């Protein structure tokens, strides 16, 4: 079985820390977007056209909010995967270090 180790101990540790931060922060962003927080209005890609329609304007904006929120959740899920990968690399590195000695 070819060696599954492709990065050193420091890179794996950085990847793990980054993934944990990414999961927490993107999940929270996703929650804030899906609850239509007003502060994040500038991050939602709405156009003038969405604002024009009288009765459905609010619903359009909410739909966009939800889309961005789901994007955030998917990104958080990807980071869970990257985190798991980094964790495996960290464990493999520790084992390799232990074997040499």
């Amino acid at each position, binding site marked *: 079985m070819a060696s599954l180790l492709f990065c050193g101990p420091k890179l794996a540790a950085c990847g793990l820390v980054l993934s944990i931060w990414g999961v927490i922060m993107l999940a929270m962003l996703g929650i804030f977007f899906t609850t239509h927080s007003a*502060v994040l209005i500038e991050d939602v890609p709405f156009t003038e056209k969405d604002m024009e329609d009288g009765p459905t304007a609010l619903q359009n904006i909410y739909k966009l909010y939800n889309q961005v929120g789901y994007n955030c959740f998917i990104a958080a899920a990807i980071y869970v995967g990257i985190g798991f990968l980094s964790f495996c690399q960290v464990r493999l590195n520790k084992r390799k270090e232990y074997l040499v000695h």
Partner: protein
Amino acid sequence: MSSLFRSEEMCLVQLFFQTESAHNCISELGHLGLVQFKDLNPGVAAFQRRFVKEVKKCEEMERILRYLEKEMVKSNIVIAATKEKEMVPCARDVLELESTFEKLEQELREINRNHAALRQNLIELMDIDSLFIAGVIKQERFPAFEKVLWRLFHGNFVLRHTEMQATEELQARGAVKKDVFIIFVQGDHVREKIRKVCEGFRASLYSCPKTLYERKQMSNSVMTQMEDLRMILRRTEEYRAGVLTRAAEHVQEWGSKVKKMKAIYYTLNLCNIDITQKLIVAEIWCPVSDLTLVQSALIKGSEQSGSSVTPVLNRIQTQQTPPTFNRTNTFTEGFQAIIDAYGVGTYLEINPAPYTIVTFPFLFAVMFGDCGHGLVMTLFAVWVISQAESLRKWKNELTDVVIGGRYIILLMGMFSIYTGLIYNDCFSKSFNIFGSSWCVRPMFHPHGPWQYVFNFFFLINVHTAPHISVWNIASNKLSFLNSFKMKMSVILGVSHMLFGVALSLVNFVHFRKFQDIFLQFVPQLIFMLSLFGYLIFLILYKWCITLRSETAPSILLLFINMMLFDYQSEHVLLYRGQVWIHIFLVLTAVLMVPVLLLVKPFLIYRTRMKTRHQVGEQNHFICFLLQVSMGDIFVYQAIHTIEFCLGCISNTTSYLRLWALSLAHAELSEVLWRMVLQVGLKISSGMGSLMLVVLFAAFAVLTVTVLLIMEGLSAFLHALRLHWVEFQNKFYEGSGYKFTPLSFDSLLKTQQ
């Protein structure tokens, strides 16, 4: 009384002990770590001191130990860590250790030499073995070799060559790439020519036996020789590993023993040996509260050495200034270190460290103020604190600095979370915790005054959530934030400086300079309060009352007009009677300046005149020479007064850096969000999530490097400067020298 409030009271003690018990006594004192030896032979050069030979012996032993450690690291042998505190050896143990070290070193060098020789033999044998052909030459020289042979024999020869099989063993030993060749040529007399050519190209020739049988025999003999050599090499390596492993168990213990012995001899060099060679006299500085501990350590030391006479402690009075000793623990030593970096406090002066523990992280946090960044910083500090011992092994200068300041970073992070909540800023986004108190309805009345309702509710919200979340996306956010942060910086600055002036009062009371309280502390306080204390009052007053925003007076203009006595009728005033109060305050402040400048020198002059009349004319000349001249005193007082008065204004303005850095941090944070993360958020299609993953990684890396490390260092430096200059020049003298006790713990820690 030991506390961080003030440095400890020290005393000078004379020690008398016997020469035999010297080692044990000094080692006990070293373990205690509470005494500093004074140099009793300051004029003597290093090579003339009494124990210089012993110090050299210790250094030689340290060299041998370093060589041993290097050999161990090369052979991947683990060095065992020492467990318990060992006793320091006396003089005869020193000789024993020395001989052990020398023997070890010789053995190791011999082993290495043999090893190298055996390896060389093996390589030569391998050359013969893998070839059966006539010669070996370095690969790069082969084309030239062939050309020469062509010229020589005009093509009457057959030359075959191949690259030598590079075995793993050879590669490991660093052999050069070689080619093997065999030449068939007619005639015997040409053998000489070939030999000469091969010598010129430094190729090794091997005799080629003529028959197959002889060839086989030669091959077998070579094989057996090689086997023998390999076995000998293996045995040598095993023996070497055994020697090193046995030494590895003790090497750390030996190392610390040698270091302690060297420190003891160095200390003995500082002492005086009595004429009878039986008594050693030493002078030490030690804290008064620890005298009993020192006594008991000395008794223990003399008991260990078996001497019958206990050492004698004799406290002596002295005019010399003792060193400054601040008793710290792991938490406070970081803060004490940053204070001492600017100047060690004068003996028995008040110590700014306990206040710095709170004000330094707070001023840092005012400039850094972001919840998210503060949280990352706090988590990092918690990790460093939990891993402090294992991180110390990296022995990198940068990590040592971070480990030394780990509690400072922790406090900085926690305070930043607090100020982040006040500024309502988390990775440049804000929270909506308490709802908005902004009333939109009055804005839609076309007529009628718009009550600035916001101002009133602001005061209530100051303790809950001063910044309403919707401010974050307002387009005039900065003009409000700037005004708020500037005024807050001035308030913080003036309070900090007033606190510094108050601390000078404590110093005056302790040193019994009651005259200075009335001549320096009171005028300084009145000057500051009447001008800058009133400024703070104006700021707070304007925040509390309701005003129409078009007609509200600017505080800066009010202040300038107050100083210039410029009162015209169309200027708007904040309250009735303001003009008279302003005139009164400015006149008071101006009156304080001559008090600061003239009263103290005048009093000194008067006391001198009185003593001169009393002493009489004969000693007049001598007295005149001994005293500092009046001119110097006047100049000194003038410098001090100008420094204080002008310094008040410049230092208050200097505190505006609190506003400037927090603005820079907030703007950088917002730009990072908008330019990096928002690009990914604005893509609403499916690819948005992948872009978000990549852009978030970039956002995280940039946050850590630019916002945390760069801005963090910058805010740290500015907060430190505010403490060192603006706060401490109100009361701190900082002209002492640090107490450096003989302590084996710190010796072993720093040299590891």
